[in-house]
């Protein structure tokens, strides 16, 4: 719809009140929806009313009885997922993935949790090569610190959260080759804990992993190759 064609925005709440229930039920036509949404952007009262109605609509489906899908459903879905990359990421979405991970971990910190990615779409964990390859890593964003090789070359970053359920996000996108690496961290008291082994594909990968709370604030994180060679390290502020 061109700007000229677009209807005048609605300024009077009474003009959209009758549409809010239909918007919550997802049965407004596109033009009607655009008109109402325009109004909602500037009207907190109608937006609040819509949230309530959307809550009703959500409840209507939330309590539906579960039903077993046909045999093989799960494998058919997963087969399709393997053939479809996640939504193409744009430059900068690297940070979005991290933000989602951070929000997620905050919500689920008590659970044993590992999330990771590798960069080749052909690998089981593939699919966000664009993000890893195109993103400009954030070298300093609060708790984020650079992962550097012994020669001081930047290869990725690490983000440590020291809340009640500490966790660590590691993102590497400038190493090379397909290999497994080990990630361990050192606490302030010098204790070292191995967090796990992870896969790098074409030198890229990332993961989020819980850190034992007993370690306290982290001093450093270390990435080593399977042969023991140190690939990169990050030092957290004291």
């Amino acid at each position, binding site marked *: 719809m061109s700007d000229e064609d677009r209807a005048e925005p609605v300024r009077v709440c009474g003009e959209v*009140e*009758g*549409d809010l*229930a*239909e918007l919550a*039920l*997802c*049965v*407004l*036509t596109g033009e009607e929806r655009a008109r109402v949404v325009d109004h909602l952007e500037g009207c907190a009262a109608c937006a609040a009313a819509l949230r309530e*109605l959307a*809550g*009703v*609509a*959500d*409840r*209507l*489906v*939330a309590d*539906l*009885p579960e*039903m*077993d*899908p046909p045999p093989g*459903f799960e494998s*058919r879905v*997963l087969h*399709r997922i*393997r053939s*479809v*990359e*996640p*939504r193409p*990421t744009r430059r900068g*979405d690297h940070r*979005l*993935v991290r933000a*989602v*991970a951070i*929000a*997620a971990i905050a919500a*689920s910190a008590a*659970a*044993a*949790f*590992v*999330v*990771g*990615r*590798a960069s080749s779409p052909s690998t*089981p*964990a*593939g*699919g*966000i090569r664009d993000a890893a390859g195109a993103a400009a890593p954030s070298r300093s964003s609060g708790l984020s610190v650079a992962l550097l090789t012994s020669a001081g070359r930047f290869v990725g970053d690490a983000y440590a959260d020291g809340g009640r359920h500490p966790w660590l996000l590691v993102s590497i996108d400038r190493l090379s080759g397909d290999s*497994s690496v080990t990630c361990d961290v050192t606490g302030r008291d010098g204790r070292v804990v191995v967090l*796990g082994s*992870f*896969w790098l594909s074409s030198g890229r990968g990332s*993961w989020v992993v819980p850190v034992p709370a007993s370690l306290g604030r982290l001093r450093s994180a270390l990435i080593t190759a399977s042969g023991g060679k140190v690939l990169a390290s990050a030092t957290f502020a004291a």
Partner: protein
Amino acid sequence: MRLVGSEPSVRATAQADSVSDEALVAGMAAGDEQAAAAFVRRYQRRVFGLAMSMLGDRALAEDVAQEALVRAWRHASVFDPRRAPVAAWLLTITRHLAIDALRLRRAVPLADEEIARLVRCDDDTERAIEVALARPGLRAALAELPAEQRRALVLAHAYGYTAAEVGRLEHVPLGTAKTRIRAAMAKLRGAMHGEKAP
């Protein structure tokens, strides 16, 4: 993600199964297929149940349920946990797809008897109501609605009809159809808040 060591897939899968919805979506946003597998296992029965309730056709419901889960995978990176719970997000995707499927099916004009069946709110539709409103409080509130409001709500909610389509089916003006849908929703909202519907 690929964990290495003994039985990596078992270990990773067990971990993925124990995490929160939000963590699984974060994993999917990061391209983690094990998170996706856990997500599918966790939600397939709800997604398929919703699709079946709306479509009443197992083959079509499977298509819709598959597509909903694949879309969740593709769009996980734009999921915002501050805006909606994961379940509401996923079920909204499913419902949109089911409505699209219903509308496509309606591209073939309904036979008169089909229209009459829908408007009559007969046994099938009553069953859809029962299914759609499994929560006792809402079911009771629905039962208290005037029949024309209940029909309008079911046609919109369970069958995805717009107010204009509801009006045509019910032979009432658009404004009347809108009022019926709005009134029904307002009463259910009241029921959700534990209030007596006005």
